[in-house]
């Protein structure tokens, strides 16, 4: 099947979303820099957002009536807003952490361990 000719479906969007999501998880799991972890979170949120948009789009699936319609875009909009807020707060925390510990290595931030 030639991907350039066949129509693109919901599944393809979902696969792109999962790849972004998994990249984000990997980023969170392997970066020691606190900003790297933040970037991982942004990637995860984007992967999820892509899924919402794709589910909301009626033209990507065989059963149009089951599309969630405008709700998908609405939720995605809220996610973007909350992500912006999250980035601002997380960055403020990161800066504070950097000021007090003189490092941005998350491995050093284990004072709350049991």
């Amino acid at each position, binding site marked *: 099947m030639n991907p350039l000719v066949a129509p693109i479906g919901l599944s393809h969007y979902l696969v792109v979303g999962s790849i972004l999501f998994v990249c984000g998880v990997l980023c969170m799991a392997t970066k020691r820099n606190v900003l790297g972890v933040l970037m991982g979170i942004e990637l995860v949120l984007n992967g999820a957002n892509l899924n919402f948009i794709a589910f909301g789009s009626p033209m990507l699936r065989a059963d149009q009536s089951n599309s969630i319609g405008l709700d998908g875009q609405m939720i995605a909009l809220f996610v973007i807003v909350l992500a912006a807020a999250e980035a601002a707060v997380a960055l403020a925390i990161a800066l504070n952490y950097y000021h*007090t510990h003189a490092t941005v290595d998350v491995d050093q931030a284990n004072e709350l361990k049991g």
Partner: protein
Amino acid sequence: MDAINWHSFFFLMCALVACTFAIAVVIASNIVRMACYLVISLAAVAGLFFLAGADFLGAAQLMVYVGGTMVLLVFGVMLTARGPFVSMKTGPAQWLVALMAAGALLFVLVQASFSIPAWAGPLASQPQPATLPATAEQLGYGLLGVRADQLDQRDAVARGGLSGYLLPFEIISVHLVVVLVGAAYLARAKRRVTKLSTNTAGSHKP
């Protein structure tokens, strides 16, 4: 030879860029480069939004994420990117574990994506609109409490649950104000508490 489906073509292009640069973010060890790759990946995702018919969301993504959040992030990078923190390596054992867990997750997700036949794509017989309606207006009505796309909903029970998003919108806006004030408070310039920092630095185990 059939005609090239331009929607598919642009989708593949944007998806390729988004995925490639997302992977590049994971692989790169330099924090500045990671930020650049992330910008490109997010911009490509905005392209995907446009392709899925979400014009307003795509624009918001470009402005808020690529414009706003990334500037914020780059600021953070510039404030903290010095000497030893620019690149910090992780051991192979952790890479191995992370790759195994992430691989399993990817397998599960991709398998689920293809598990519903109806998701594979629109039927050939299905009419495809030549132009898509602009969604900004509909979203605006939705935030004010009117679901413009569901006005012809006949089902009385379903109508009850379709009152729009006025309350969440209000909550989000208050939340945003609180967060921005809080962030500004947290990140404000202050004198470094030298005593605390030397104490904690000394107690770290290598």
